[in-house]
């Protein structure tokens, strides 16, 4: 192929890819659940952004009385130190989401790399990689999380790292299976015959087809990550000085929020997690349904 042909090809391809993407977005917006999911998640992101700039109080300022129910000056009341719960929630949303997305991205990168390499190249590489995956999958997750978090430095980075380590194996299995099935398809064989190198084939042909699956899994990884991080924080693991949904609940439990009936402190972080979960669920399901080719009905 001349370089001019290649240019034309890549222009055609990228424009059609952009078009396909735009078209896909349109369909997604028209999908009821998909739209709801997008709105929910966008709202949370918005809250996070608002938190950074417009939080009413510094979350660590303790000027108010402790355990105050919601009032005009403190819309969500105060916690055990008199800190403003609303500010904690606004800023905490950002931190929690950031953690979730980071985990999703990190797990996705590792998972996709491992999965595609194992699936595409097969043989010994595949065997070794899948053995590792199997072992990681068999060890029960939560205890492993606890033990790793207990021994490694207590920072958010550790939490993200540890949770990613536990999340990528499952994804890599899924990706590997998809890669295997894609490998058989005609156009891959055609590309192979035309002498393209493995990596080129992978990036041009395989990965674009994996994008829906990757995205869907990434969404659920993000949710899982948020929930898991909250759980770890609740257990006293991870960075306890961070402001996020999990630490809010940790302090609630550690400082006997129950005794003070402090529901205003208990509800927001949990609702945040639930909202994110539902939003992600809707969005993920919508993308899944839309990415399925039309099936013929049973006769």
């Amino acid at each position, binding site marked *: 192929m001349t370089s001019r042909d290649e240019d034309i090809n890549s222009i055609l391809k990228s424009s059609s890819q952009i078009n396909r993407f735009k078209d896909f977005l349109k369909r997604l917006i028209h999908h009821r659940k998909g739209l709801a999911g997008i709105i929910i998640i966008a709202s949370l992101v918005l809250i996070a952004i608002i938190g950074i700039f417009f939080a009413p109080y510094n979350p660590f300022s303790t000027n108010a009385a402790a355990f105050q129910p919601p009032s005009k000056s403190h819309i969500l009341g105060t916690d055990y130190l008199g800190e403003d719960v609303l500010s904690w929630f606004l800023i905490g949303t950002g931190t929690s989401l950031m953690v979730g997305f980071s985990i999703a991205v990190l797990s996705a990168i590792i998972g996709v790399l491992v999965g595609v390499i194992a699936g595409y190249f097969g043989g010994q590489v595949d065997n070794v990689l899948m053995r590792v995956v199997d072992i990681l999958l068999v060890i029960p997750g939560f*205890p492993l999380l606890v033990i790793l978090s*207990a021994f490694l430095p207590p920072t958010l980075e550790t939490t993200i790292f540890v949770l990613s380590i536990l999340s990528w194996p499952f994804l890599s299995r899924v990706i590997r299976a998809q890669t295997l099935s894609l490998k058989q398809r005609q156009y891959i064989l055609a590309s192979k015959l035309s002498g393209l190198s493995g990596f080129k084939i992978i990036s041009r042909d395989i990965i674009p087809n994996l994008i829906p699956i990757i995205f869907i899994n990434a969404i659920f990884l993000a949710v899982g990550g948020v929930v898991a991080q*909250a*759980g770890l924080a609740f257990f006293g693991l991870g960075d306890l000085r961070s402001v996020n949904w999990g630490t809010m609940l940790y302090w609630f*439990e550690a400082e006997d929020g129950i005794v003070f009936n402090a529901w205003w402190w208990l509800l927001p*972080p949990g609702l945040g997690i639930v909202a994110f*979960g*539902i939003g992600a669920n809707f969005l993920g399901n919508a993308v899944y349904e839309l990415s399925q080719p039309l099936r013929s009905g049973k006769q």
Partner: protein
Amino acid sequence: MITLRYIVRRVAYMLLTIYIAATLDFLLPRMVPGNPALIILITKYAGEFNPNQLKIIEGELNLRGTLWQQYVGYLGSIIHGNLGPSYYYYPESVTQIIITRLPWTLFLLGTAMIISVVIGVIIGSYSGWKRGYSDSFLQAFSIGLTSLPYFWLALIFQLVFAVMLVINGQHLFPVAQAYSINVHQGFNLRFIESVLHHAALPLITLIITTFPGFALLMRNTVVTVLDEDYLVLAKAKGLSINTIRKRYVNKNAMLPVSTSIALAFASIVGGAFLVEEVFSYPGIGYTLFTAVTVSDYPLIEGIFLVITLTVILANFAVDLIYAYLDPRVVLK
């Protein structure tokens, strides 16, 4: 169908996993700076000890000799069930602590799992059979329920039912613990009553978050099965609806559910730990929490090992049950 070969392979696999878990257990604490034996002595005896004591504790903690010697010694003691002494509860051994606490966790896990599966299967089967209204409601319900973090739900229940709701001057449910202080342990009615009363909220939390998954799975499976050819034949044979439901639909639909029980175990363990913490329920989950707070490394490792073993054994049991139920399965 179960073959001897399958059992052998599975046991080998289990042992491999335990081995890896144990090795991890061995390596991790040794990556943390500091001499654990010293830590114990300082914590417990406020710095007043003699060098001999140090040597003894180091021996108990397996810190003497080369790394390899320690490793071998460690593996050896594990096989004998000796998981070392706990820092926090010194001189109680980890094994002792775990043995007293583990039954409570198993009680929660087992009961919650069984009830969740039963409820889930019944609802799912009904929903798949009927379709229509109950169906979409179930799906929405499940999405909502599975997004709930265990511990948050537990806290809410605790807040509402054990603290806020007061009927006739009495709280509806106890706030914490496995049984009341003023009740005598043993097989008497009051004790059992107390245990059940205290277990109610933790169990409800676990069950509510677990059963929707099963219900949804069962429902989907039933829908698939209803489309199968052998269902048509069953109808053509003039079999009663009950027979068809039991022998043809449910029996087939239960299979994927059984496999997912293994997966559910992994997640319900995490849930149980969190719930224990909320309710101060004296299982190994709560103990783990305490151990983390006081950095009691031997205890943390011991619990990790035990829990890993439990989950693996549970999975194995489920696999066997599945192989027994599905005649088509040829286990590799």
